[in-house]
């Protein structure tokens, strides 16, 4: 009984240890408080900030931009990926382009997007959507290409037409890899949105808040914003894992 309670508490051990070490380091004066505030004060700033302080407004802006970028990427990327995947010749002809731009750090394209969209809110969403889109396309296309051949054969032998095979088999087969793509895409969208908020003259957002606090050496606010960004990324990941488990319920069975 005791050991079971103990195993449940295991995931908390790491974060607690981190906070203890952090606290000791600050107390012992190894790092100046002007560079690293004590953990309790940081958490306090985080909590009060998210409970209606200015941090909350920036947090929500970042969430909104990330989700907008993600929604655009998913709404265009999944159909395009599935369509490309169902014609292997079509996919092979654009494979290099997708792989090339997928390998190009999206942040390197920020100046290009600045030229096109200017210093606007649209810009941040557009570039994040672009980076996320490539990931979605790639994963959905491969999902269709690598669909289990036997299920396709089973549909064919039952007399399914090409379209029926697509609708009843290929689409479903591609869902699991598509979800992997969506999950990576939302992380990518968050990364690019934060970077864009830092460097494309932004007035709002977590990225803007992090760099602003750093400029005025408000380290408590900076660390709280970093933690908030981390919590957001983690929450999005967990949310997508849960959604995947519900929707692609047969995955891994």
């Amino acid at each position, binding site marked *: 009984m005791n050991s079971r309670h103990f195993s449940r508490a295991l995931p908390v051990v790491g974060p607690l240890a981190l906070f203890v070490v952090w606290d000791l380091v600050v107390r012992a004066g190894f790092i100046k408080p002007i560079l690293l505030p004590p953990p309790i004060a940081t958490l306090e700033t985080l909590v009060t900030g998210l409970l209606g302080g200015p941090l909350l407004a920036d947090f929500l802006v970042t969430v909104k931009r990330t989700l907008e970028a993600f929604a655009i990427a998913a709404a265009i990327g999944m159909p395009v990926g599935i369509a490309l995947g169902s014609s292997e010749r079509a996919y092979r002809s654009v494979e290099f382009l997708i792989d090339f731009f997928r390998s190009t750090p999206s942040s390197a394209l920020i100046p290009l997007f600045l030229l096109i969209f200017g210093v606007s809110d649209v810009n941040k969403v557009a570039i994040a959507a672009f980076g996320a889109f490539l990931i979605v396309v790639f994963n959905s296309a491969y999902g269709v290409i690598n669909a*289990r051949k*036997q*299920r396709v*054969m*089973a549909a*064919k*032998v*039952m*007399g*399914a037409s090409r379209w*029926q095979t697509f609708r*009843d*088999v290929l689409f*479903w087969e591609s*869902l699991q890899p598509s979800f992997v793509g969506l999950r990576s895409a939302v992380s990518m969208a968050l990364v690019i949105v934060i970077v864009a908020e830092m460097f494309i003259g932004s007035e709002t957002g977590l990225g803007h808040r992090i760099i602003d606090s750093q400029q005025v050496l408000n380290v408590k606010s900076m660390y709280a914003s970093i933690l908030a960004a981390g919590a957001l990324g983690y929450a999005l990941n967990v949310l997508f894992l849960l959604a995947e488990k519900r929707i692609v*319920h*047969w995955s891994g*069975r």
Partner: protein
Amino acid sequence: MNAVLNAPVEPYADVPKPEFNPGPPGTEITIRGLTKYFAGWPLYENFDLDIPKHRIVSVFGPNGCGKSTLINMIAGLIPVDSGEILFDGKSLKDTKIGYVFQNYREAMFPWMRTIDNIAYPLRLERKPKAEVDRRMQELVASFDVKFDLNRYPYELSGGQQQTASIMRALANHPEVLFLDEPFSALDFEMTLFIREKLQEVFMKTGTTMLLVSHDLEEAVYLADQVLLLTKRPTKIAEILEYNEARPRTVETLSDAGFVATKKRSLEIFQREVRR
């Protein structure tokens, strides 16, 4: 000059098309001149075969002789290089067939409930719901299903999944049922159960069945005809008739006729393997 260039292109015009000889009356599947090469080597070359209607034919032969390839070509899952395959004079696309795969895990659709998997061939034919429901009840009764068909396939045991995939294959009253080693991924108990169910269905409906098996006892037990194949390039080694009355039971397995047919099949098989 122009006239010659524009003449209809007819390659091999001087090779006469072989005449099509239909099989004897009561033939379900007629195979003529079937040719299939794999990596430049002939697997089947000018292969002819008649498969009788309303009978169970077991296909047995050495490893790599293409037993599964043969039924996959007949079922249209693997393209043939040349040759003709007719179902009672019709082409495949005018014929309803059922197919049971060895690997039931990758044959069922895990995103559909088991009952919807079984009804899928009827949905493809856009049958009205009442008719689908009636057929489902029939199938459930004849397979004596005791498990919950509203579960997803992956929630069922292997034997239950294979039972469901046989029900799916039979749902739209196919003319021919193909079975590609349907028992080899199952435990003994389930094999016995499904074997009996197949025999019952056959006695009730007389659906022509083509069974690939690697278990000689099972092949002979279910068969009216045992089709023995040679090593590649594959030919017919022999076709053995086995006319024991149905239902066959456990006693049949020690019956003189059964033992003799099994022994004869084994002799031919060994002769072909050593050749």
